[in-house]
């Protein structure tokens, strides 16, 4: 079986051998990934259809502009770049694990599987931070009744519409209730406790003056579908990452126990690798559709 080059004219379909020259397990992994590609493709195309059907979709540079521990600094694309590089790097460590498997190097497989698992866990941590940031975020948006509210980004609410003009802002502030004005004023102080009590005791006009002179970015509400698509598709991808991490942990344990060494080959690492690279592949497209364009 030392053959490396495939002779031309090999008759693949005469029986007795796989016409695809791979084991049953591997060919089925490929077909599973192909069907999964259609599932993700359908989700992303559905998202694209809805996005094309409205006038103002949320601007990704406005929605995804924060970074952990950077406060309210405006850093578009920064955090998602970090997530992308984490996933690319864990793809490299995975393919290195497969390579070590080909050399029957047990220690090498273990080392690179651990690195891959760490990469996957780091990605999931980033995603958890990003979701929390959006779900608990405070963004001032004008509802259709003309009043301002402090809204997070959820599957039911999307505060990321067009910016309000100065006149729209002045009009909306006059209509907004005292309770909401206090809530908006509090977003200016970013949670300083004594400032909160102070805001509640101010009159409406004082609050309006305070808000109008601040650099607040109030917007119209945006298409509600944004949250559902964002959390739905990144969630489905994140679930794939999670199951990939679990599969990789199982593969690491089986390597450690010497199962593959006894078997004489590390093909299971290759199959887990196919799944892991697919997860990276999907992220390449999620990254394109949600963050870049």
């Amino acid at each position, binding site marked *: 079986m030392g053959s490396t080059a495939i002779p031309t004219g090999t008759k693949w379909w005469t029986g007795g051998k796989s016409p*695809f020259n*791979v084991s049953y397990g591997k060919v089925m992994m490929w077909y599973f990934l192909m069907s999964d590609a259609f599932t993700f493709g359908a989700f992303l195309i559905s998202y694209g259809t809805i996005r094309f059907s409205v006038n103002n979709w949320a601007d990704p*540079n406005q929605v995804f502009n924060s970074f952990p521990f950077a406060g309210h600094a405006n850093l578009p694309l920064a955090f998602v770049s970090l997530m992308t590089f984490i996933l690319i790097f864990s793809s*490299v460590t995975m393919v290195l694990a497969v390579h070590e498997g080909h*050399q029957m190097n047990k220690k090498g497989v273990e080392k690179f599987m651990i690195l891959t698992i760490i990469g996957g866990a780091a990605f999931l941590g980033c995603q958890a931070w990003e979701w929390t940031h959006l779900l608990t975020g405070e963004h001032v948006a004008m509802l259709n009744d003309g009043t301002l509210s402090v*809204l997070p980004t959820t599957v039911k609410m999307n505060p990321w519409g067009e910016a309000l003009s100065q006149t729209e802002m002045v009009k909306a502030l006059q209509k907004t209730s005292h309770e909401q004005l206090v809530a908006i004023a509090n977003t200016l102080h970013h949670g300083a406790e004594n400032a909160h009590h102070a805001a509640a005791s101010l009159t409406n006009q004082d609050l309006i003056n305070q808000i109008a002179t601040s650099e607040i970015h109030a917007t119209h509400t945006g298409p509600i579908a944004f949250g559902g698509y964002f959390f739905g598709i990144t969630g489905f991808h994140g679930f794939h990452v999670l199951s990939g991490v679990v599969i990789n942990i199982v593969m690491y344990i089986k390597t450690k126990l010497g199962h593959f060494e006894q078997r004489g080959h590390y093909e299971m690492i290759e199959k887990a690798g196919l799944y892991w690279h*697919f997860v990276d592949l999907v992220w*390449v497209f999620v990254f*394109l559709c949600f963050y870049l364009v």
Partner: protein
Amino acid sequence: MSAQHFENPEVTFQPDHSGGTKKIWKIFWVLSALTIIELALGYFLYLKHGQLGDAVVLSTKIVIGILTLAKAYYIVSVFMHLGDEVRNLIMTIIVPLVLFVWFIIAFLADGNSWKNLRNTRGKSRTYQTEEVSKEAVESHK
């Protein structure tokens, strides 16, 4: 460290795995470079937001899309080793995916047509962003 051997009777030929990790690292740098170019173009669109013509924005986005397809090609071909497999397997994976060409064109055109109907020719209702329900806002507080 003896080379591994498969006992699968259906596998006729083993691809050559004796090579080093040079190619893997090369592809890592290629993927990183493509990602950095994508990010630069995305940042360019952000900086020039509202100042560029529709055609420039659209063509920049198309370039980013093509770079993404290049990344996908490298991941599938090298990291997933599909490029080392026999042609029969490559075709059975790639050919069905060609459906996406029709899928994307048809659905995006459909979405665009909805927008045009609502904005211009429909006239049955004026374009308005869906309302965030009061209950949703209340339940959040």
